[in-house]
């Protein structure tokens, strides 16, 4: 529990100041990888689009290199992707801003609950019951991983629970934000009511299907002038963030993410 111990010291105020400003686009970088549709079954095709931005605004990620990660994360590693996927991987398609690719047929076995015969341990889902196929994006010296939500079975649960889950589950849809208004004091992004989609998942404790509703987070990006925080939790119909330097004329972008892996980018006019 080393983590907890040193955290006592951290909250006591001994941490070095880094002057972090993740929202400020000081150099070109990826701000989102959009997946359409955001959830797919093995064999289905999905389109991915890399969205990059820098101090001058949006930057076309035309030289993005795409590859599929096919190695699950062993318990000895602490990241979201296996270190085996940080080395050389074969390209999943031609370089470019977008990639259209079929979800590998064995994705639910590698990254989901459908383990091969022989009593292997299934992957643990995230809090929304999701399993994800990692897709690596190399662009401008940066390595990023997008995650395609997999439509797999319910995993190692009772048959009646699995059937109920399959009958009631609705695949995820990407958010559809209305606009981003960059006012002098705050940035405001709006989306229609119902963007936070209801869905069902299997509760691992109760071992039954339960109802849930997506959470929304918004990541803010500006080309100049800091904002109060780089990410905020969204409400029913929108989110906002304070601009700390109202005089700073800047382009602004918001990436709206739902908790099931969907995302959308909205740009200030």
């Amino acid at each position, binding site marked *: 529990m080393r983590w907890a111990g040193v955290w006592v010291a951290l909250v006591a105020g001994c941490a*070095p100041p880094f002057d972090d400003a993740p929202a400020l686009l000081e150099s070109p970088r990826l701000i989102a990888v959009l997946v359409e549709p955001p959830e797919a079954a093995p064999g289905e095709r999905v389109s991915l689009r890399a969205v990059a931005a820098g101090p001058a605004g949006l930057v076309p990620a035309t030289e993005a290199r795409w590859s599929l990660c096919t190695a699950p994360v*062993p318990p000895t590693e602490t990241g979201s992707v296996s270190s085996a996927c940080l080395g050389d991987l074969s390209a999943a398609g031609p370089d470019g801003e977008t990639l259209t690719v079929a979800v590998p047929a064995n994705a639910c076995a590698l990254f989901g609950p459908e383990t091969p015969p022989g009593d292997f341990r299934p992957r643990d889902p995230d809090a929304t019951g999701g399993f994800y196929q990692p897709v690596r994006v190399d662009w401008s010296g940066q*390595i990023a*991983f997008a995650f395609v939500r997999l439509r797999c079975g319910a995993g190692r649960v009772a048959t009646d629970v699995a059937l109920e889950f399959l009958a009631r589950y609705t695949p995820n849809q990407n958010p559809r934000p209305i606009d981003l208004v960059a006012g002098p004091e705050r940035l405001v992004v709006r989306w229609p009511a119902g963007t936070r989609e209801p869905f069902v998942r299997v509760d691992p404790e109760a071992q039954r299907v339960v109802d849930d509703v997506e959470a929304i987070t918004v990541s803010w990006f500006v080309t100049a002038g800091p904002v109060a925080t*780089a*990410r905020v939790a969204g409400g029913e119909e929108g989110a906002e963030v304070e601009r700390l330097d109202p005089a700073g004329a800047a382009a602004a972008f918001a990436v709206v993410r739902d908790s099931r892996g969907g995302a959308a980018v909205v740009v200030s006019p």
Partner: protein
Amino acid sequence: MRWFLLALAAGSAAAAEEPDAGTIVRADRLAVPGATSFRVDELEDIPGGQGDALVGLQSAPGMARASPGQGDLAVWGTAGADTRVLLDGLELPSLYHLGGSRSLVVPAFVARAEVVPAGYGARWSRALGGLVLLRSAPVPDGLHGEAVTDGTDAWGAVSLGSGRAGARVAGHASWLDAVVSPLLAPEARERFPFPRSWDGQAKVTLPLGDRDQVEAVALASGDDLRLALGEADPALARSSTEHRDTFRVGLTWSGSDAAEDAGWQVTPSFGRDARRVRQTAAGATAQLGFERWSAGLRASYGTDLAPSARLALGADLLVSDTSADRRGGLKLPPREGDPAVFGQAPPDELAFDSWRVRAADVGLFGEGEARLGPVELTAGLRLGAVATEVSAVLPPLAGAVPIGGARLDWVPEPRLAAVWTLGPRVSLRASAGYVHQDADPMDLSAVFGDPRLGPERAWHACAGVVWRPSDELWVEGTGYARALESLVVRSPDATPRLAQALVQDGEGRAFGAQVVLRQRPWHGLSGYLAYALGRSERLDAPGGAWHLADVDQTHVLTAAASWRTGAFRAGARLRWATGAVRTPVVGAVWNARRDLYEPILGALASARLPAFFQVDVEAGYGFELGGARLSLALEVLNVTNHANAEEAVYSFDYSRQGFLQGVPFLPALSLQVER
């Protein structure tokens, strides 16, 4: 963290006379190389204890420097959890409250503390590392009381004794949280929390007949700690809450001369431990808890077979029933050997398990001791058996009846020790043995661990020379080696087998040497100088590469001295230690789903924090005033204000590294009143 400029102590103390334990620590018959014994009043004079003498044990010879806020008693290359702490034979889950700055036992309740880093005798086991043996203080005749308060805590003790009968109660409680927290805004209360802890002890001694004696000891403690960084950014919001409570009661019925290990002694005990932890970070949650009931029985009989030969026989039984649950991902909290980076968002996986473990650990031991001229030889054998029953060997499945499992492990543990007296002031010592440590019930989950795990095991061997130039001065050089077997580690398989997220393929080795110069009180001067050179490594999978253990510290130097003359006393403690082992960050990847950067790691455990250096000083002056004795003392932690790096921290994209710094220059003034 006791960062307070003023600490006030008041009370009246009546120190019980305690015989000097001598410099040869026998850990109940075995003369163990490298072991040290401290009277509590010796520890009180060592600066840095922040008012708690037993905190001074964290810098005792053989101990690795503890991480801040941990209070680990990690000896000779093993983790703090591998050290067993016992108070009058009652096993404690830890010597310290959460945070490590207060002990679980009021110092006035304890007379002596012995640190046995390795090679202990056959009557002990269940510890891959060492032993910390606390002996409660005897109850003096008459009525005595002591009450002390400082800037954060209050504690006290009352005793009543008459002849061989007596009773003492002691207790401690933190009070700063209760006083200050209501004055703070709710957000500040969570961001700058004050630990809440309490403990109480009781001891009753009754004579039975002319020589028999019954001694009952009870202990209870509780801890609560809540931390929160309620950032507006959901990716940075973190919180941690932890609750822990412990109860122990034991009864020791001893026959004639039991203190000298002759005659018989029986100690039944009973206890309960509960712990609940909840941590959230970047949307990931880990929640775990357990309740453990335990009962123990220790019985021993010792007798002289001949003028130069002795025999001790006994039994040591511990049964426990643990109910546990856990919710979250596999990787939080981290384990030994995990390439954990401070501040890294854990994977947002979610699993759940609830399970029960019933275990019985039985050890029958015998030790024979013979003196052959200048050589004193002790040979021991402990026949151990560990039976473990788990409620489920497979992850839960709705509608399916859980299938339990059981296993039985036999652990024969030979022990051997020898002391060769070369002269009146020089002796050679050596000891070796095989020990085991029961599987942690929290590792026996079918979802998060492996229900089939058995005991971990280790070989200990140590040898040294002791030279006593005078009655007060003691110099000891010791070499040691450990080989750890069947260590529980994470499965290296990308897709582990069902109910095998943990496997028992780990190995470990630790070796090194230690030199200790110890000065017993001499013209008011006492203290010790200890230097340890060591290496501790782990192997996580057969055929893999050895890497440094989390606890590895190549050099640990501690010098502590105190001086009393008349009304004045002064002390200083210097500590220098190799920096803690870390895994370097060599880059970062961006997780587009969570909008978080994650570190790319270099070779496991191939980097270190900068070396630790700290000097603490204390000076005190006593005087009479109005029939009372007042003592004014000033303790200064980190008097050189050395910026010690306690943890490596990173910017949001891991492009910049900085260090979390430890205790700065920190004075604390205290006033004690005795009457």
